[in-house]
């Protein structure tokens, strides 16, 4: 090899290009780093001391993470669904349905369901959480049964449940505003080191659990096998129907946790608009994270990074004073750009 001055730089570029195409998480990670740098520049350095800058930077970051924890948790389940070759459009609507059920249970007003049977305080909260999670799992299981036993395309099945959940919830919750008890809010707002970071902790714990499931368990690997080649998986003794049902059940469960988190953060829910569009946000996070819409190839870690990229971008647009109506356009650009830049199999 010659020792020309350009060699080192060429090697770096070769390494970079090689890693970009060979390692799927590399491109996502690089994109996130670029976004963080831009965001740091946008925040500026106009602070009296380094400490003041750092604390502002950290507060900014905990806001980003907290604001995206809800979508982040849903997108973990969505990753499994998409790896298995499916899609779940209903997550935004099941979110409000589950939220409504939880709030009806813990309502401190005269209509509160648990109050009427004399259950209050921590036992009531625990019961509401268990009921909410069970309800979410049930909704997911119904979708799973429609897809497997009913042989409906996931797009159609979840388009249907999306409409049903939203509409029924809105109808029954008309003119009823449940009162969420103050202690319930602690679930999301319990301070850790004086910071409101509980949602972030939940998100990362779930992300870790999902990562382990996807990499180490028979079920997690079977999800990839089903998405990669359903026929081959079935002939290899994989119970394809069970795997498919479980990914929707798991997503329903994650939506339930996200709904409980939202109720405890805000203390109320706007049934017409809450969660609306969150199915697309969750899908965006999964896709930006490098998971293939065709199924078979996907990464939990990528989804976490994908959710962060979208979150950081929102924050960046905010810092730069981009008008709110234009922000969705940037999300669109990010999704298209991310997929364009990812390594894709040649379609020929």
């Amino acid at each position: 090899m010659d020792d020309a001055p350009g060699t080192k730089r060429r090697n770096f570029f070769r390494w970079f290009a090689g890693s970009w195409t060979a390692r799927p998480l590399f491109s996502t990670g690089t994109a996130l780093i670029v976004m963080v740098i831009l965001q740091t520049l946008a925040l500026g350095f106009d602070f009296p001391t380094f400490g003041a800058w750092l604390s502002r930077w950290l507060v900014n970051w905990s806001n980003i993470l907290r604001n995206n924890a809800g979508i982040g948790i849903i997108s973990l389940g969505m990753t499994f669904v998409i790896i298995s070759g499916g899609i779940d459009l209903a997550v935004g609507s099941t979110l409000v349905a589950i939220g409504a059920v939880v709030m009806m249970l813990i309502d401190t007003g005269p209509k509160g369901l648990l109050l009427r049977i004399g259950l209050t305080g921590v036992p009531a909260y625990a019961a509401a959480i268990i009921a909410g999670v069970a309800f979410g799992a049930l909704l997911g299981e119904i979708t799973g049964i429609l897809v497997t036993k009913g042989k409906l395309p996931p797009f159609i099945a979840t388009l249907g449940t999306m409409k049903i959940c939203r509409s029924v919830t809105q109808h029954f919750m008309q003119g009823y505003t449940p009162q969420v008890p103050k202690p319930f809010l602690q679930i999301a707002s319990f301070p850790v080191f004086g910071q409101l970071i509980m949602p972030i902790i939940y998100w990362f714990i779930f992300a870790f659990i999902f990562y382990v499931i996807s990499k180490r368990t028979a079920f997690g690997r079977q999800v990839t096998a089903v998405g990669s080649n359903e026929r081959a998986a079935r002939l290899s003794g994989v119970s394809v129907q069970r795997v498919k049902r479980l990914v929707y059940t798991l997503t329903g469960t994650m939506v339930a946790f996200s709904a409980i988190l939202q109720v405890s953060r805000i203390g109320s829910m706007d049934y017409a608009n809450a969660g609306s569009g969150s199915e697309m946000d969750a899908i965006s996070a999964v896709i930006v994270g490098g998971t293939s819409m065709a199924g078979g190839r996907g990464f939990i870690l990528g989804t976490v990074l994908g959710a962060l990229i979208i979150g950081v971008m929102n924050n960046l647009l905010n810092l730069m004073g981009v008008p709110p109506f234009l922000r969705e356009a940037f999300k669109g650009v990010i999704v298209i750009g991310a997929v364009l830049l990812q390594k894709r199999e040649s379609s020929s």
Partner: protein
Amino acid sequence: MKLDMRGIFKSFGASGVLKNVDFSLEGGEICALLGENGAGKSTLMNILGGVIPADRGEIYIDGAKADFTQPIDSMRAGIAFIHQELNLINDLPVYENMFVGREINGPFGFLDHDKMISETERIFAMMEMELDPRAMVRDLDPSYKQIVETARAIMMNSSVIIMDEPTSSLTETEIERVFAIVRTLASRGVGIVFISHKLREVMRLCTRYVVLRDGSMVASGSVADVTTDSLARFMVGHDVRTETLQRGRQVGRSVLKAENLSDSKFFRGVNFEVKSGEVLGVTGLLGDGRSELFQSIFGAGGGYAGQVYIDGSPVKVKSTTQALNLGLAYQPRNRKENGILKDMDILENGSISIWPVISKFGFIDRARQGELFDRQVKNLRIKMGGRTDLITSLSGGNQQKVMLSRWISSDPRALILDNPTQGVDVGAKEEIYDIILKLADEGVAVIVLSSEAGEIIRVCDRAIVMYHGRIAGIVSGDRMNEHDIMRLATGAESDREV
């Protein structure tokens, strides 16, 4: 037209795939391109087809240097590449498939269906073939699909047609149909490159041969001057066995028994029994229902009437999971569609069927998975880089061995292998036969489904010949020969002795 490829080099990463290969072809020749999987045949033809660029070397057409950077360049030069996986659109009729990308428009820009149909009919007539251009491609036999692709190549006025293993999924009669067309084309001056692993076909069809081994040309000449044995020796670099493998093993107790199995469509009144240590062949022509029969027994097909016994006790298999638990294993045909998990690594492709067994609390015991797979790698002599490389990085023969390891590792008592040597070269084929015999010696009841009578005769103790979903006869000993098998498979005679 005269085609000349000179001094072609190509490497992927560090490994050289083609090392200074020369290849030439004249009009009217049918040239066999032979070599084991990974010898570089496909790479060489992909370079000629403009699919991938060569690192070094030139291509001349009638003495003029050609520069193929993409498939369209090669097509324009009159070279048609018929890939092993046919590129037809199942949901369009034959005539529309003929014109995909080059549709004939009438006035106002609408498709001129009549013209496309009559043009297709003209080509078919020229090929002396009867096929309705309006038939849906989905409904065609594989041989007709192959012929439609060939017809498309002819319509484009191709003077060189590359056929990549055109007969690998065809039955004997279908092969004859394709061969007749190939001969007609050659007589009209078209040059044909015929890639195949089936040496006897090569002897029957081709005029010239070229053998590649490890990326270099090792032999070439006129087919009239060689035997299948010498061709096989050129390919693998040493002698290859062709005689019938030794029989007379001890057979044990009944492992799998079927009584009067019928379904609504594919098979009727099937009875058979296979014992521990026995190799049972099942053969027939296309539409004989053997794959559907055994898929149903394995719980992967439709339901059936009748009774299946495993180890003498009646069972009703409802799912593949249950079948594996009962000690059945079924390796499907067409590994690309039914076997390969393309997004997963070699290790996982080889061990997916045992995950439920080696998991504790849902977690895969990775040490055990690796240990069991390594045993198979040694046992089956799988050649690979790292076991966490993608399955698609392996050659066809090694992919097939990984598929075998997937079903062997579940320790089945009855192992059903559907076309186990499909798309596999001579060397790997022999190794697979050895594995089958070794499994039988260990007491496994092995069922080999194959459309190649030669393969059945070579490894099986006994063979069931099927015809249109029924058992036409069971042959063994001296009666297990190509002539008798073909007579039963074509329905020429129904065997009454059994």
